[in-house]
């Protein structure tokens, strides 16, 4: 059985449980470079969390999203990207806001 694609609302709920390390997580269902169906999770982390515990927090976010959204049961490949709140304030990219 193929699980349903996650919604931004579900992702928001998970992000709230990961606060204050996680500021928000943006979901984008698209395809990857080779055309495979893909889900991109763009997580904005607090500066403190990224400065002190980037790898640890990133791993926790990945694990939570995988487990609670059943990502391993999807046809879509999951990709996770991370940046800090202050980095996004400078880069101002829509897909992360």
């Amino acid at each position, binding site marked *: 059985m193929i699980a349903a694609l996650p919604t931004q609302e579900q992702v928001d709920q998970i992000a709230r449980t990961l606060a204050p390390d996680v500021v928000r997580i943006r979901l984008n269902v698209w395809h990857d*470079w*080779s055309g495979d169906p893909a889900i991109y999770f763009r997580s904005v982390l607090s500066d403190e969390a990224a400065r002190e515990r980037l790898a640890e927090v*990133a791993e926790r976010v990945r694990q939570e999203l995988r487990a609670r959204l059943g990502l391993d049961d999807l046809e879509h490949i999951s990709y996770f*990207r991370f*940046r800090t709140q202050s*980095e996004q304030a400078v880069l101002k990219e829509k897909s992360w806001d």
Partner: protein
Amino acid sequence: MGLAQDLLQQAEHLATWEGPNPSQASLRRAVSTAYYALFHLLIEQASLRWQGSSEAKTGLERGFVHGLMKNVSLQFGKATWQDWHGGQQAVPQALQNVAQAFVYLQDERQTADYNNHERWSPAEVQQALHTARSAFQDWDSIRNDPMAGNYLLAMLLPKPRP
């Protein structure tokens, strides 16, 4: 030290040599180089298993194709892999980690090299480097496991035998 380790070191250097405000060019090259570090690690490990001539070894190394390596990594990134005889084999967690890292870094590399709309931050690049470093460590812990050999062999063969 082999090419793969050199590339991993070079990726770290590219990400940090300009200090706290690195250029987009350095960040992109760091991500791309991190992917190629893992790519070459797997090729080196496959060629180490080859006992034939050095010419044939070069041919074997050239037989690795990015797209097939990704597809095989998608298979080995899961808990079980369908083996050469149709049976289900458990994939050790460390090998799953390597395979997942390969898929992730390959996509990051494509974005870094070809998507000029995407801008990179130091934290994103540090995460890519961390993934590459962890994949090297995971590979070191699993490289003598028979499943590691299956992973490398599958990357050279389009489909397992029925």
